[in-house]
């Protein structure tokens, strides 16, 4: 069986480093991107099964990338989990508006993220 590919997009290298073993232990292949532009490239190259996407990033933010992918026929079926430290209803609504499949607020329980990924992969 082909390994499930998880694209982890966050401009914080420390965050990607910490999350890698959490995802790898589930038997998933982890692909990293440090900015919006790189994320879009990796989506095209790697065709990930799911994307974990940070909202606040330089140049292209998570909302913009999410919207771009969700309006593209080729990629709109890839589930996207938005990660953000932003609070408030407006941001949550914006996440739904741009078509995100889930919205998780930092800091979070790693279990919570894993559960969310699994349920989106099964759907």
């Amino acid at each position, binding site marked *: 069986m082909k390994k499930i590919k998880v694209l982890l997009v966050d401009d914080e290298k420390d965050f990607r480093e*910490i999350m890698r*073993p959490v995802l790898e*232990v589930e038997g998933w292949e982890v692909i990293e991107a440090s900015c919006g532009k790189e994320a879009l490239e990796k989506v095209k190259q790697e065709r990930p099964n799911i994307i974990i996407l940070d909202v606040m990033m*330089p140049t292209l933010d998570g909302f913009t990338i999410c919207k771009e992918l969700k309006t593209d026929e080729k990629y709109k079926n890839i589930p996207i989990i938005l990660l953000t430290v*932003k609070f408030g209803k407006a941001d949550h609504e914006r996440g739904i508006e741009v078509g995100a499949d889930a919205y998780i607020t930092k*800091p*979070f*329980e*790693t279990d919570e993220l894993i559960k969310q990924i699994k349920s989106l992969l099964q759907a």
Partner: protein
Amino acid sequence: MFKYFLKKIFKSRDEQLRLLRKKLEKEHNAVKILENFIENKSRDFFQQKEKFRGLLEAAPDAFVIVDKEGKIIMINNQVEVLFGYAREELIGKPVEILVPEHLRTKHVEHRKTYFEQPKKRTIGIGLDLYGVRKDGSRFPVDIALSPLKINGDFIVTAAIRDISEHKQTEEKLRHAAAVSSEAAKREREMSELKSEFIQMTSHELKTPLTHIKAGVSNLEHLKLAPKVRKRIFKIIDGSIHRLSTLISDHLDLEKIEKGKMEYIIKPHHIALMIRNAVESFHLFSKQRGVRLEYKISHTTPDVLVDPDRFNQIMTNLLHNALKFTPEGGGVTVFSNIKGDYLEISVKDTGYGIPKEEQTKVFEKYKQVKDRLKKGQIGGTGLGLPIVKALVEGLGGKMRLESEVNKGSCFSFTVPLAKKQKKVA
């Protein structure tokens, strides 16, 4: 016969005399009636005139009555009070005497047009009309005109009201409104900045917290290779350091802003202080792959500084320079004597700062706001505002030269311990 004749003559003369007397009497009566009439009329006129004057004097406004030629024919006491002229100085004079000089020609034209079609109207509403006093001072007025037909000719009554107080009140109200709207605007801006600042700070707080939380969870639940374990410990440690820096930066800035930062200023050997600061970044520069060097002569004269604050300035500038310089680049520290000051520069071959952003890097809220807008993160965004405030607190000045893709040079001055001899 003669007698009869005579008798007849006398009779007719008597008759004539009687008739004449009668006629005279009639005429006398007519004159009497006329006299009475005239007397009554003139009394009437006098009474009316007095009545009119009484009314005029009782009116709260200044009244100027002007004939067709624009000559003043009657005024009330208010005019004397308002314009500072005596009655006899005005009667017979052109009404323009009461109009500011630069408007006199225009006023003559307006007056002529008005007499062609005189009707009741108010002038001055929405216009800035002024009266001019005998002493030349001007004051704002409202004027109401009303025509009066006498013997087929028009005269015009002008009711003039001094609206200085009204204007002042209006001005005060306008000013008060402006002030309160300005204050409201400022408050709104501050509150926007504050909420953005809180959002930014919460981002800065939550990011390292996320790392710590996830890191601890990993260490607890996952079987990790020793190398990965070590790395996660290091990230947690770094995140804790980031949090504590964030907190101390906030506290420092608060102290500086409230003027509570204490400086213990004494003469210090600058070369030694710079060497210590640079050497503390030895490891960091190696990790970043950036060359770090300093060119400060051991003979550089002593400076007046607080060593702790000086070290804080140097640490901030060096950290920034190394952070924003790509691998293979370099950071150099050097100094120059400038009058009674020593200028210390930290120059890098980094990414540089666009011109329009160069002043913003020293502004605490601005920079944070812009970074938030662009979604840029990393660092507290308070480092440079603190550096600038500390430099100024030590009596120096901060300066930045930068070019995109070439690098930045942050320089600051500190007072020399001994005044330099002027070089001729």
